[in-house]
């Protein structure tokens, strides 16, 4: 692997800019049977909460045109088990972990953040302030700039590693929220989480998901993600991990041009579990064809360069 793909972000020294997105890769165990996890740029692990959570009743997934809805409801084994079992398992791989953390109150986040950040292979945190699938909060942290900033500040105070804040796309003005968390000390942003959506089953005449609404992910939301990253990257000076519908190396490049400095791949792992290593290979080739020495050069080119517009 050449140096074309290597990038360095706060807390994340990555061999390449590709990481699986939180919630779409569990804690890596299943995928570790398919390929060497050390080939990944980083790993975004499933949201960890203080207590273990069963999550929502099933059905938890439904399909939509070019996308899918999920309402998993942050199922996870809880802080203790994540720290004692899941993270140590991942230590056998040479790959930085971006630990996604969630909660319903500020104290939850702070407590989980403090403990998870101490794990040797967790080199950055991802604050999930945008999960649409838990009733008791979650998303409200992501729609109010002041609340989001206060939470960021509280977590920054206890975290030993850099903190990325994962933004919700279900807002009118994402720039204001991004700037608020930047000011509160966030080291980077992850965007976007899922859009809120619903599908109704014509036979039962009820929403397919037991939780009724769910988070929309996959190719369908890609244009929304690209637009938001384009807007935000011009107005903040912290790096953005871009995600939302990525399925091809061209998509990765599109996110970089929009202003992302790394990308996460979510839903596409379900369609093709080998997608991440495949994208890494294809990206390397694409950059050679494009005569780009390091993918870094592409960050924000859609707004920073003076290329002629056709």
């Amino acid at each position, binding site marked *: 692997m050449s140096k074309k793909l290597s990038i360095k972000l706060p807390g994340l020294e990555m061999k390449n800019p590709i990481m699986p997105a939180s919630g*779409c890769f569990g804690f890596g165990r299943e995928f570790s049977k398919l390929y060497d996890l050390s080939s990944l740029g980083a790993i975004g692990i499933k949201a960890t909460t203080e207590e273990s959570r*069963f999550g929502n009743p*099933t*059905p938890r*997934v439904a399909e*939509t045109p070019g996308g899918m809805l999920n309402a998993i409801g942050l199922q996870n084994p809880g802080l203790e088990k994540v720290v004692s079992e899941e993270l140590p398992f991942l230590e056998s791989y040479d790959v930085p972990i971006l630990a996604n953390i969630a909660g319903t109150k500020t104290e939850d986040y702070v407590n989980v953040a403090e403990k998870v950040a101490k794990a040797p292979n967790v080199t950055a945190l991802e604050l999930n302030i945008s999960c649409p699938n838990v009733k008791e909060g979650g998303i409200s942290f992501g729609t109010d700039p002041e609340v989001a900033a206060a939470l960021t500040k509280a977590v920054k105070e206890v975290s030993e590693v850099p903190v990325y804040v994962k933004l919700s796309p279900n807002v009118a003005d994402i720039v204001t929220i991004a700037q608020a968390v930047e000011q509160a000390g966030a080291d980077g942003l992850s965007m976007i989480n899922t859009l809120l959506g619903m599908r109704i089953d014509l036979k039962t005449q009820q929403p397919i998901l037991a939780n009724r609404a769910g988070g929309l992910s996959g190719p369908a939301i890609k244009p929304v993600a690209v637009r938001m990253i384009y807007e935000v990257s011009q107005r903040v000076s912290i790096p953005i991990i871009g995600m939302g519908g990525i399925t091809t190396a061209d998509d990765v490049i599109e996110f970089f041009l929009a202003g992302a400095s790394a990308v996460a791949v979510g839903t596409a792992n*379900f*369609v093709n579990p080998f997608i991440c290593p495949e994208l890494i290979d294809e990206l390397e080739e694409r950059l050679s064809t494009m005569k780009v020495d390091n993918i870094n050069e592409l960050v924000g080119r859609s707004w920073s360069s003076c290329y002629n517009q056709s």
Partner: protein
Amino acid sequence: MRREDTVVTENIEIARNIYQVTFKGEIVSEMTEPGQFLHLRTSDQYMPLLRRPISICDVDIDRQECTMLYRADGEGTKQLSDKRQGDQLDVLGPLGNGFPLDTIKGETALLVGGGIGVPPLYYLSKKLVEKGVNVFHVLGFASAEDTFYKQQFSELGETIITTIDGSLGYQGFVTNYILEEQPPYDILYSCGPTPMLNAIEQQLHPERAYFSFEERMGCGIGACFACVCHVQGDETGTSYKKVCSDGPVFPTGVIQL
């Protein structure tokens, strides 16, 4: 387990909306466990986006061919039914844990299938017969037109067909037949709609039985938590099993029906 672009060798309708598809590929050599399933991509675009879980129905290891039976009903299975000989079929698998064969001690196995739950029992039955087990099949369908593989099963052992409308075989549910006729068995294997599995558990109280479950899936490999089920007798409500990777086959008494 692997992902492979296999080649369709045949795809035909064998009963009302029920298709039999056969494909060829190296992946077939891994398909030694009955009750496992394959996760299929029916479109190379993203409509539908997700794969479809379909059971292995029959395997010819030598010819590297695998057969599946499926009902063409929704978006994905309808696309699958449009595949022609020579078309590519993107297969991920084999996935999950199938029916355990090692533990079988009894002389007679009762295989109870309902509708589109029947296919995995065929490969199971073949494997049991190979091991010298005596197999007895009770296969339930809605109606004569929905019935398939009667001949194939009959070649392996006694085969009772039940139909709800009585248009073929015994009229009634599979459980009605079994309660009435009391065929003797040492172990029971079943795959079919949840109400059927429930009736088997509640009405037949089999001592040793394995059920194959269905749940909507995302990844199919245990990573997304789409397919979780509650566990019987779990008071905390936080224990779970994933149908895709812990199952789809579980001993009775494990999954909360």
